[in-house]
């Protein structure tokens, strides 16, 4: 039998033994009901917008990512050490299956299970495409990145289950790593920006109402004889532009960043991905420091803010690096699990047994 055939046998054992069950179908059913509700409410809320389908599509994709990352650790985080506890790991290892086939087969099973949520969400994604607004390139790229990210979470779980002896700890550790990526990066980004504040001094000009004439120019609303005074003002701004890269490995951010964004007539993104991408890309821009403001100089404009489209065009995409970091982390954990699970074993964790 081929290398892949034997790996697939491991995956099918895993799917039949551990994953498939009544609880799994109940979970999928609950998921479908929740997505149905989200679909109904999002559709009502965005019905009058230009691209109702675009918003709906991105909301559903994020929902699948959220649920996938919440459920997958529970299913994959005890794939290897759970078998060890049940006494079925060693009987598999004495067959002709290699450790790599064993670990990757379990990854495949966990990934397929996570993709079950994506499949359950497909009718709703198709509905979003049908009602219009969602672009095909957005749809394809977001699904690919979503599928890959679910695979990363599955791999983290399987990897940790091979590295940590007790199933409970490896499941918790998987949740912690997933939380570190999705929430931890956000906290680090916020704190990093706030810690790294810059002091800014600006000179602002004000109209000295006491010194100026009482006569008011009816056209401008300012005194006819203007007397100006300057005031120095010091404040601090957080420098998010020095820590923006921390968000690169965040699954939600990298998904948004990877997807091609489409803009409306005003240069605003038409879906949730675009809005998030705009927010994150903005953090790359240094704050406009030292810009003085003058009440007297009536010619000075309020300053034109760049549109979302311009911001996105002028900043660096980071999703490729973020995705690479995710895949490297998952790969390193899998390699660790393979070398740790290898039989014949040279070293055993304290208190563990083989059979």
């Amino acid at each position: 039998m081929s290398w892949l055939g034997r790996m697939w046998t491991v995956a099918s054992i895993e799917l039949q033994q551990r994953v498939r069950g009544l609880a799994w179908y109940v979970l999928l059913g609950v998921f479908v009901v929740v997505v149905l509700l989200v679909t109904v409410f999002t559709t009502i809320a965005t019905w009058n917008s230009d691209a109702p389908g675009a918003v709906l599509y991105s909301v559903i994709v994020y929902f699948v990512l959220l649920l996938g990352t919440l459920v997958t650790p529970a299913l994959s985080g005890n794939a290897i050490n759970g078998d060890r506890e049940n006494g079925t790991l060693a009987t598999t290892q004495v067959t002709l299956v290699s450790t790599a086939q064993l670990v990757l087969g379990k990854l495949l099973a966990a990934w397929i299970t996570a993709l079950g949520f994506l499949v359950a969400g497909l009718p709703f994604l198709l509905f979003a495409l049908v009602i219009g607004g969602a672009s095909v390139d957005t749809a394809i790229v977001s699904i690919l990145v979503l599928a890959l990210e679910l695979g990363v979470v599955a791999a983290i779980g399987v990897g940790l289950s091979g590295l940590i002896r007790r199933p409970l700890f490896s499941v918790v550790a998987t949740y912690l790593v997933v939380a570190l990526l999705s929430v931890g990066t956000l906290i680090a980004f916020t704190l990093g920006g706030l810690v790294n504040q810059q002091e800014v001094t600006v000179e602002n000009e004000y109209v000295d109402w006491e010194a100026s004439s009482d006569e008011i120019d009816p056209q401008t609303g300012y005194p006819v004889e203007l007397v100006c005074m300057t005031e120095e003002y010091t404040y601090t701004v957080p420098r998010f532009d020095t820590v923006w890269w921390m968000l690169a490995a965040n699954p939600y951010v990298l998904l948004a960043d990877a997807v091609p964004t489409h803009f409306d007539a005003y240069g605003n993104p038409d879906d949730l991905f675009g809005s998030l991408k705009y927010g994150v890309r903005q953090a790359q821009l240094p704050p406009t420091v030292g810009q003085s403001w003058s009440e007297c100089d009536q010619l000075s404009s309020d300053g034109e803010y760049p549109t979302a489209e311009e911001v996105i065009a002028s900043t660096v995409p980071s999703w490729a690096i973020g995705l690479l970091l995710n895949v490297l982390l998952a790969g390193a954990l899998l390699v660790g699990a393979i070398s740790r699970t290898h039989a014949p074993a040279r070293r055993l964790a304290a208190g563990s047994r083989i059979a």
Partner: protein
Amino acid sequence: MSAPEPVPAASAAAPAPADIVVEDVGRSFGAVQAVRSVRFTARAGEVTGLVGPNGSGKTTLLLMLATLLVPDRGTIRIGEHDPVTESAAVRATLGWMPDVLGSWANLTVRRSLVLTARLYGITGRAADDRAAELVELVDLAELADRPTRVLSRGQKQRMSLARALVHDPRVLLLDEPASGLDPGARIALRVLLRRLAAEGRTIVVSSHVLAELDELADRAVFLEAGSTVSADRVEAARVAERGWRIRALDAEGLREALRAQGIDADRIVAEPQGLVVPLAGDERAAELLAALVGAGIRVVSFAPAVGDLEHTFLDLNSDGEAAR
């Protein structure tokens, strides 16, 4: 287990017999020296029994033989292959039945066997046929399509044996195969293992049921605190004084005759099945029997009170206790 039918072979041509040669093997877990120095040879066509008290290193030794654990020192050869460096070659010829009864709880017995066959590279119809043969062989046909979680301990034990036989291995390692089996299944297991050995397989069995091993094993390897007991000590223990149970129609007459034969009255123990008398060696026993019969005692039974292995085991154990 239905013994009579022959074990169906997956491969038609009889492969070369594979002996097990273990040379001075040791393995420790941290500070615990589980196996110190074990050396023995298990020959093809024979059943070799591993005998020793709990913690003497039997299971650790079997794990090293089963390509799951690397020895700290010494060498193991299974049919000319090293389980560490050539584990794939060893695994192809080896069936292992662990002492832990793990099974895929949600899969049926038949499905478990089919999937195990696939892991050994047996696919399609061949895997289905093999699973069908094995459920018949270990007498689980009625339960073949039930999930393995409903099996009792003894039934799981039989399924575990079937799983070890999936790829028709030349070498069988069985860790406590008889535990949990009812008497009928034990007899069937014994008949099956004898037949598998007669087909040229190398079989290593560890067991606590020494009476069982007495009838099954061609030779025994005694383990004590992680080391094999030397042949000299085993021989000495074997011929050491042991209890013989003697029953006669006239119990009082027997007691008188035993005293007349110079046996210390204090050392004669009365048991419901007869009087137990300590005798050193078979020669002495034969002489005593002849003397009793010659004295007109009507002897009904005259036999060792415990089996050969058990006697040796107990004697070695008491040596060990004394040494400590």
